Every structure is written in C-alpha cells, then in structure tokens.
C-alpha cells in the first residue's frame, strides 16, 4: 500500500492510479479526506454539507468493483458548489430562501459522470448568494477562507471550491462561472480552473443565475486533473437547451503535445489597464515562458464587460423577480439591492447589449484566425482582505467588488473557453487566463500543461498550519 500520509496533496490522477493499481484503497482515501474536512472546515468554512455516509458507501463500491483498474478517477474525492443538485440534499445556491425547498431527488448529471469514472462525492461547497458575487463571502454561511491567508477572500462566487482545492481538502471540485466565478477563486487561491466553451458541459439540475452566461467546470491542482475530469463530463444532454450535441472531444491524450505550433499572444489594452504590479508580473512570466510573440488589442473589451454587466443584472433580476416580490427580506441585502435595480433597467438597453454581444463575438473570433491562445490576467490583484470594499487603481480609489471581474467578464461574455492557471508569487498567488477559440479547450489545456512543466505555473502549497 502507498503511504497515506501525503495524499492530501496528491493529484486526482495520482490517487486514481494508486487506487486502480491496488496500492491504495478508495475507502482509505475517502476516510482520510473526510477526517481532513472535519478538522479543517471550522477554520476554512469551505463545506456547507458533508456527504460522509454516501461517500463511504461509494468508496466501498469502487474497492469491490471489478472495473476499478479502468476507472480514470477511481477513489478520487470531490465536492461541488452548493448550486449542484445532490440527491437527498436541498440545493441552497448560497441562499437562505432555497433552504425551504425539498431535497433534490437526483444528482446533477455532471456528478453522475464523475462518479461513473470512480470519483467519490464528499460534500457541497460554500458560495456567494445565488452566485452574484466575486468575493467568496456569504451573509448566511460566512466567508470561505483563502488557504494562503485566512484573513483574505477566497474569491467568488465559487469560493468554497477555491478554498477546498487550494487547501488540500479535495483534489477536485466543480463550480460555475457566469462572469468569472471559476477563474476568480482559482486566481485568489492559486489553483487551476477550467471554464469550458459555453454549452460544452450540461447545466441540468444546477441552480441557474444568468442563463445566457452560465457555465460549469472543474477546479484542480494540476492541468492534467482538469483535463481528465473535463473529458469524463463531456457529452450531449437534451435537458439543457444550450448543451452542445458535438461528439465529445477528449483532451487528456493531447496534453503532452506542448506549445509547439501554438500561436500565442498577450492581451493588452483593457486587460492591462488598472492591473496591479502582481498581475502584470504574473502575465509577463507566463507570456515569456509560453513564447508569446505579440501583444494584441481585444477590441471594445471594456464595452463588452459593460454589456455583460447589464445582461447579468437584468437576466438575474428576471430569474429572481417572484422571490423579490414575496421574500425580499430573506435575501442578502447587497444581492437584493442589485437585483431590484436590475429589474428596473429598460429593455431597450438590454437588447442593445445583446446586439453588441454578437458584434463583439465576430471581432474576437477574427483574432483566432491569427492566434490559437490569448493570455490575460485573471484578476487585477491578489486576494483582498475579507470585507474590503475599495482598492486603488492608478491612485484612484475604486469600488473593489464589481471590479474584480473586469478581465474575466469580456471573455465569458462570448463563451470562450479559458483555463485559469496559478502563478505562485509570494506572498500570494495570482492567476492568468489562457483563452482559446470556441470548442478548442484542447489548446488552452495543452498550454496550461506545458507551462506547468516549466514550473512557471504551479499550485502553491498553503502554510504548514493547515497541513
């Protein structure tokens, strides 16, 4: 049997390999993960529910299964943002209101896909209320903590995902990204995150936020783990009207092709304006290691971010209108006030944003005729303090929270695939976005994997107090 002591920092692929080979039992891996969650969660506040009984039963089934050696994620513990349906648990989506809902009858299909590959669900993760958040704070459940500095934000809205993976509680988590909610926690917590092409992974049986912008995707500590989990989650689903009917396009087998032949550029203009020195340092390191040859301008990115802001406010308000009418006092007040304002925006302005969206998409797609991968910062700064309201950009005090997503919003606005990769700066890590053309997750993941091999990109291990 492999030494159990250090599996906390093992990759999902390593755990699966050891379990498949009979070097480790899934039961031992899961017991270890559950013990770690019990020990660390009072400090980190990543988990809002732990599915211990279910996890132990699943681990036992993996261990006794004849096909264990063929399972790509055999015995790998994972957790999901609490907007995913988990059978027999209420899907709270970070809210107080949804706690009155009945328990979900079935799992989200993405949970099923991971469990079919041998992974073991161990719980649900903290998030900003209804995913309208970049901080990882939650007025009902408290903030999920940054594993590199407990006084700092994990990033939102998939904050618990960032905390749990970054702290070594689990090697794999699933979250959602509407405007940056996978990429921001990845940046602040120093881990890898994949926001696939819009429509690539089914969103069935997850609580929505902005239907025309919502994506689901994995978090991990290595690029390979992103690729393996992404591969097993692909596939059509008629229950999600935007889920693609493309044949799955697995990427794990092409990871090792490296950077050869990839035409790589760095985004300038909007994507460097207002960036803190740390963000620019991380971008420069990744750009140099990747051999980026040009700096390019993504046209009208600031306006794209503005249009995403408008569509988010208004579609989000439409989703929650009946709850605002009946239960306004039960919302997080900050979320409630944003949603009420969103309900008041004239439809003519929303339609303008959707018209602009198509135009902008066409302009950006032209860039991919010349480049395969575009690099951009994930966040303008490293993780701010929990509760922080403002920061200084070019000497001007600005509201922090809406501006955390200035570099992520123009990308998800048109559904481009992105891998957020961690640059292990001291004292805090920060992420860089590796952006590729629609349906070309393979290129972004190839670049992420190659950069990881150079050491420029890596998940830093948190301080010993959490070991």
């Amino acid at each position, binding site marked *: 049997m492999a030494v159990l002591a250090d599996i906390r920092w093992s990759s999902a692929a390593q755990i699966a390999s050891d379990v498949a080979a009979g070097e480790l039992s899934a039961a031992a891996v899961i017991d270890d993960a559950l013990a770690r969650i019990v020990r660390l969660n009072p400090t980190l506040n990543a988990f809002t529910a732990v599915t211990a009984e279910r996890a132990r039963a699943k681990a036992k089934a993996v261990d006794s299964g004849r096909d264990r050696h063929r399972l790509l994620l055999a015995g790998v513990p994972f957790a999901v943002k609490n907007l995913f349906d988990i059978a027999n648990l209420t899907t709270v989506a970070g809210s107080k209101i949804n706690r009155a809902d009945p328990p979900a009858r079935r799992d989200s299909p993405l949970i099923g896909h991971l469990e079919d590959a041998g992974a073991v669900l161990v719980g649900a993760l903290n998030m900003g209320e209804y995913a309208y958040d970049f901080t990882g704070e939650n007025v009902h459940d408290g903030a999920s903590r940054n594993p590199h500095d407990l006084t700092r934000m994990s990033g939102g809205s998939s904050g618990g995902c960032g905390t749990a993976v970054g702290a070594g509680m689990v090697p794999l988590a699933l979250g959602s990204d509407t405007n940056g909610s996978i990429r921001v926690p990845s940046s602040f917590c120093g881990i890898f995150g994949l926001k696939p092409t819009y429509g690539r992974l089914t969103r069935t049986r997850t609580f929505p936020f902005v*239907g*025309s912008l919502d994506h689901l995707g994995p978090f991990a500590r290595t690029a390979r783990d992103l690729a393996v989990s992404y591969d097993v989650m692909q596939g059509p689903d008629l229950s999600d*009207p*935007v889920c693609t009917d493309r044949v799955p396009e697995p990427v794990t087998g092409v990871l090792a092709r490296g950077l050869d032949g990839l035409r790589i550029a760095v985004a300038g203009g909007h994507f460097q304006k207002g960036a803190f020195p740390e963000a620019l340092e991380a971008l420069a390191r990744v750009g140099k290691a990747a051999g980026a040859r040009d700096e390019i301008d993504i046209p*009208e990115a*600031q*306006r794209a*971010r*503005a*249009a995403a*802001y*408008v569509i988010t*406010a208004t579609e989000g308000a439409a989703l929650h*209108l009946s709850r*605002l*009418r009946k239960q*306004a006092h039960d919302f997080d*007040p*900050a979320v*409630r*006030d*944003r949603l*009420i*304002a*969103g*309900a*008041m*925006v004239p439809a003519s*302005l*929303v*339609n*303008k*944003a*959707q*018209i*602009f*969206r*198509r*135009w902008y*998409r066409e302009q950006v797609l032209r860039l991919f005729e010349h480049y395969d991968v575009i690099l951009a910062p994930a966040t303008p700064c490293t993780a701010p303090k929990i509760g922080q309201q403002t920061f200084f950009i070019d000497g001007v005090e600005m509201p922090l929270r*809406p501006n955390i997503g200035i570099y992520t919003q123009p990308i998800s606005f*048109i559904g481009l695939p992105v891998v957020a990769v961690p640059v292990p700066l001291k004292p805090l890590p920060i992420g860089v976005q590796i952006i590729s053309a629609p349906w070309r997750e393979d290129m972004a993941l190839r670049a992420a994997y190659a950069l990881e091999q150079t050491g420029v990109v890596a998940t830093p291990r948190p301080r010993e107090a959490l070991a």
Partner: protein
Amino acid sequence: MSKSLDDFVEAAAAALGVPLEDAWKPAVKANLEATLRHADLVAEFELPDDAEPAPVFKA
C-alpha cells in the same frame, strides 16, 4: 437626473410589484445608476440597423 431617478426607482418598484423600503432606496438607486452607466457605454456604440442580437435559444 438624480431626483428624476429617485422618482423612477419608486415608480418602477411599484410597477414591478417589488417592495422598496426607504432604507433600501439609496443602494438600489446607486446600483441602477451603475448599471445605466454601463448600458450607456454600450448604447452609444453605433452599430448598423441590421445588427442582430446574440441568440442563445436553439430549437
């Protein structure tokens, strides 16, 4: 703009049937102002009349 936006916020809340307590009004108005600033940035960008919105529905 500011006073008229106060009036708009009150009228819109009534029209939408959404409760709006006095204590909430400053934050709702500030959020609406921010969203309208973003919307204006988009709306002032001239595009041809035949520019179509981005569809997300597929049959």
